[in-house]
């Protein structure tokens, strides 16, 4: 039972980090990123490939993944962030799918659909295998605390104030001398770095990665977590991640008691999540921790 709880918290922690990156982009800057998972994949594969084949220290390979994802975020943002919001959505989802096909097909590098395993994990020689998950939970939660506090600090700073002003009204921000475009690029790059960090952690947790870990649905899990908790509310993201994965894993228990095949339970789960979102939108459209007053303030 404890093992089970640890597993849920691990995955919820990793996805909380992942969704915090999206919340920075969407909740605070108003950027529509539909390819967040692509940056997660960049983090996971970069970390694994560097540490496994080239013996690069783990911490360095995690940082390398983050830097690469940040650069890619900026690279995608520069041509699109001057255009209407939906262009970024199209380009990012395209990017994440192209990347997944590259990972599937460039077998010499990524081992294609079979994926990669047997790569090093942090402190694997020091921590006994039976308690590794518990140890890794501590690692994930520490990273989560750092990322959460860092983002909170940033969004309460004048820098974050500019981001919020862009979310609210770009023209006003511009009229006050703010370089809107540059802040959007920064937000997207930083959000992508955070996604990459979550990707590295996911790889360590899974011990085995393949392109199927990075399907577009993962991006929408992050969106569900953000919307569930309340866009622009980092505490809400934490709560959303726990609720989402709690439910997701809990529904596996249901399988034992329901006369359904695993595939059917999988489909039921997705249906049920959809239903929950519809109910949420009807009764608490601002998300669980979102502020009600803000809804009436839309332009």
């Amino acid at each position, binding site marked *: 039972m404890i093992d089970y709880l640890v597993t849920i918290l691990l995955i919820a922690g990793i996805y909380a980090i992942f969704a915090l990156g999206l919340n920075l982009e969407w909740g605070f800057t108003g950027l529509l990123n539909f390819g967040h998972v692509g940056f997660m994949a960049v983090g996971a594969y970069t970390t694994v490939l560097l540490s496994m084949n080239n013996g690069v220290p783990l911490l360095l390979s995690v940082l390398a993944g983050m830097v690469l994802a940040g650069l890619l975020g900026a690279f995608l943002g520069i041509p699109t962030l001057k255009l209407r919001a939906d262009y970024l959505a199209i380009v990012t989802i395209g990017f994440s799918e192209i990347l997944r096909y590259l990972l599937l097909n460039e077998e010499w590098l990524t081992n294609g659909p079979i994926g990669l395993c047997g790569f090093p994990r942090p402190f694997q020689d020091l921590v006994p295998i039976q308690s590794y998950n518990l140890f890794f939970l501590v690692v994930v939660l520490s990273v989560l605390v750092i990322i959460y506090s860092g983002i909170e600090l940033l969004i309460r700073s004048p820098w974050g104030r500019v981001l919020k002003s862009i979310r609210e009204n770009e023209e006003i921000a511009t009229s*006050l001398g703010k370089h809107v475009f540059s802040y959007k690029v920064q937000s997207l790059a930083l959000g992508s770095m955070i996604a990459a960090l979550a990707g590295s952690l996911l790889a360590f947790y899974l011990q085995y990665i393949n392109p199927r870990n990075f399907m577009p649905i993962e991006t929408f899990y992050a969106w569900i977590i953000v919307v569930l908790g309340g866009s622009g509310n980092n505490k809400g993201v934490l709560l959303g991640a726990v609720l989402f994965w709690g439910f997701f894993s809990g529904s596996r228990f249901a399988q034992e008691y329901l006369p359904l095949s695993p595939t059917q339970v999988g489909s039921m789960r997705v249906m049920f999540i959809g239903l929950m979102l519809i109910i949420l939108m009807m009764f608490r459209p601002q998300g669980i921790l979102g502020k009600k007053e803000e809804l009436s303030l839309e332009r």
Partner: protein
Amino acid sequence: MNADMLRVKGVSKSFGGIKAVDNCNLNVERKSIVGLIGPNGAGKSTLFEIITGFEQPDAGEVFFRNENVVGLPSFKIARQGLVRTFQIPQALNKMTVLENMMLGPQLQRGEKIWNVLLRWPQVKKEERAVREKALSVLDFFDLLPMADEYAGALSGGQKKLLSLARTLMTDPEMLLLDEPFAGVNPTLSKKLIGHIHELKEEGITFLIIEHGIPYIMELSDTVYVLNKGEIMTSGEPGDVISDRCVLEAYLGDTDAQGG
């Protein structure tokens, strides 16, 4: 060298078939208040958009302190001290009134991500000063009780006030105000006019679009009249207002003057 703060030379702009601004020339002397009037759709707001870089002109030049600013991105024009407000009252709705104000000052240290992460004490200190200033400006505009409310909860008139107050936070050289008194009650408008005169004494230059003729009379050193995209006439407010053609343009009726 020219003493004018702003010189608009031969500026034209069409939207499809409509000539919104047609070969406009306009000068604003340093430390003066210039009024810009004209009927609805005359092209006043469009001229503002062009001056502040929000729209590109089809032809013509705009000199701000003797530098041609046409083609410069609008945020850079604002950083040079040429700051505008919008005709439609707009606010950063899901930010508090105080946050709206604190966004104003340009090139704040804490607007750079590295400074936030590495020089927090300095950022914090600057932030305190910005806050003090914001509160005192809000007080002047009778908005202090609203400081912690969402800006989206303000009335249209209050949003107008807030946008004017916010531009003052930028330490502007010159302000372009698009109908600053629309929706603001007469008492407060009077107070604002007094304050605009004070700000002029402190060295700020103004170009103001306003439909309220009495306000324009009280405020301006010079008035320009725009009609169908063209500057029809300009001069002292008293002379311009009594101009027959101006009345005609405004009221579409020559007899109005006599009546």
